[in-house]
């Protein structure tokens, strides 16, 4: 395998790890929400990242999710 192929693989693997960690923490949820709005509610305004996270934390406070032992 050539060096560039190895570097390419390593960088893809690294990106995959980052993608996974971010996804589990919810970093991509905003994009998913915007995509959802565009598709199903094109008439509604799209919130900014800041607005989205404010609303999200407010909801998590209203409907808490359990964490187990």
């Amino acid at each position: 395998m050539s060096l560039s192929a190895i570097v390419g693989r390593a960088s893809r693997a690294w990106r995959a790890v980052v993608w996974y960690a971010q996804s589990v923490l919810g970093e991509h949820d905003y994009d998913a929400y915007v995509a959802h709005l565009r598709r199903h509610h094109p008439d509604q305004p799209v919130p900014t990242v800041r607005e989205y996270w404010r609303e999200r934390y407010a909801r998590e406070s209203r409907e808490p999710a359990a964490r187990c032992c």
Partner: protein
Amino acid sequence: MSASSQADYLTTSKNHPAVAVVNRRPVSRKAKIGFGAIGLITATAWALIAFARGEHVNGAYFVIAAVGTYTIAFRFYAKLIEAKIVRPKNDRATPAELYENGRDFQPTDRRVLFGHHFAAIAGAGPLVGPVLATQMGYLPSVIWIIIGCVLAGSVQDYMVLWLSNRRKGRSLGQMIRDEMGTVGGLFGIIGILVIMIILIAVLGIVIIGALASSPWGVFSIACTIPIALFMGLYLRFIRPGKVGETSVIGVVLLLFAVVAGRWIAESPTLSDVFTLTPVQLAWALILYGAAAAILPVWLLLAPRDYLSTFMKVGTIAVLAVGVVIALPQVNAPALSMWGNGTATIPAPVFAGKLFPFLFITIACGALSGFHSLISSGTTPKLVEKETQMRVIGYGGMMIESFVAVMALVTAISLDQHLYFAMNAPAALTGGAADTAAQWVTSIGLGGTWDADPTGLAAYLDAAAKSVDETSIISRTGGAPTLAFGMAEILSFMGGDAMKGFWYHFAVMFEALFILTTIDAGTRVCRFMLSDALGNLPIRGMRRFKDPSWNIGAWLCTLLCVAGWGSILLMGVTDPLGGIYTLYPLFGISNQLLAAMALTLVTTVVIKKGYLKWAWIPAIGLLWDLVVTMTASVYKIFSGQQSIGYWAQHVCYVKTKAAALQGAGAEGLTVTQNAAGADVFAWQGEGMGACSVSGTMDNLNAVIRNTAIQEIMSVVFAVCVLVVFVVGVVVSVKAIRAGGLPVTEEPDQPSHYFAPAGLFSTKEEKALAAEWAAYKAAHGEGPETFEESLLELAEGIPDEMGPLE
């Protein structure tokens, strides 16, 4: 579309490509040979665990037996459950697709959801239970952790996920009400509430056991609060939405806090500030819990949760690598003298016989009722395709079980004299190295230490010093023992110099998990309490259901914190040791919750007309009922002072009566302790033989505590029995009628594609490309999370999940 004899395509509309692929590929020869080989290796590992003795037993056997059993069970038993009961339909829209709102209902990549679900179910529980269970020897524990997981724990998690997924993601309490009527539902909700409160309290006791008189530990865990606050503010005002980056910053700060703890411990003035007694820690925890449940989610809870998730996956991976590299030799016996019943003294770590008490001491890791609250909460609303529930529900629990196996390996590889010196209450060990050495060499563990108490005392002192603690005697609760074992195992990284770091690192992450469970648990508890109060048929109570009514929310929070806080205080002031008396209650309550969940599952399976397959959830249910009911009966009715709460209560009441009578009372001797208080020792007959000694304060504390413990044991047992009886009644009706209608939502066709399992097949990859082309042609952006990341996702290495 290319026709293939090896795959069926499920189509719901002519207008778009197929929504799922059903794999018809016969099992290849290679796979058959592979599974045969795995089966053989697993059986060999099990045989070695069961029959090899002495120096020949190695941690490697446990790891191989566990991974092999999970693989076989996941491939065959979980598949059977899928085929006969769950009967997934991938052309049926899941709630995530049907009610998609971009918020709680959102089709989520299965690998991501797996991580999510695992982070929500796993915590300190699977790390603590196996450590305590080591008292009985490794054989019963390892069998229960692995077999219990594949036959009961994973089955529960998977099937509750299935039930909830087919019911719009309804909660366990709601489903019990819907399927089993109001009476069952009411007792179900009361049971769940009480169970949550006791669970939080006992986890609090576990962490206080690790932090008491440990300035290093207290400092590093205290640091998690400002770190979380900083992360919260950073996320809110500086970099909204950048949770990954913020978490990395948080983890770096946290590691620094663990390193800095050493300087605190070494500074004479600062170490005093951070040296707290159990009672002070309990109050700190109560104040923290109340504050965390009232403060905005973004400020404390959410950032702490990110930290916790990060640390959870990270440290569990570190522990797994450590165990696999170190492959420690096992020092515990297969069956200890308490395990085989030959012991002449009562068991010191937890009271009672192997059956039933081992099976409630190890709850998380084998069968954990609490998981049913997660499997019926967030997770079912995020599943893309019904077939993915097998890996998420059944598979997620397997990983938790594996964590428990590693915790067990860590504990059984420790020197057993050290283990008992750490885990027996101070009443037995005397709290110092020399007295502990005297006691532990006298109980008959065998081995060379028994003839050399002085040598053992020096060894125990050196052990404490090696992890930079002043003492490790009677650090009960399991967490310190695990931390010590981890430090030993991980000492291949950094050698002895790093042991102190690893020990406090382990204490810190256990505390971190527990604090996360405490604040999330308090919030959930508050939510359920407001909901229950709001449903009361009293005028004005409806207001409790309004989430914007702050006074109501605060009131409920206060009630919840008062509930677990009082049990916590009771535990830390208990003269008999909080873990010793309260851990059984924790185990019983967790397993009773499992009994409720499995009753629901079995009832629904019978109602659906799958009587022939009802044994699948019923195995777990019946075993669990026998265990929990036997344990409850012991705890409620046993005449033995060390086991029965009531027997204990009667002994102390009679002692108090004798003490009030004064020095002449029969069986009473009065002495003075160092503080000058009267110590009353009484021997006599209560419900059985009594032998009690303590000050008047001690007597009053035990009398109060045992009464509360007795009442709680009765409440749990009654709630579960009512739910079970209702389940049986409904099931009998269903059997007579040949099935009854269930509250499953009607099928709706899916218009969404996702792979059926963890890994895409060749056909699924082709279909995904077809969907991408279809959407591009229709001017739609990539519809799913999956597709928008298709390019990246391609790069995800196949090693990312459990073995398929």
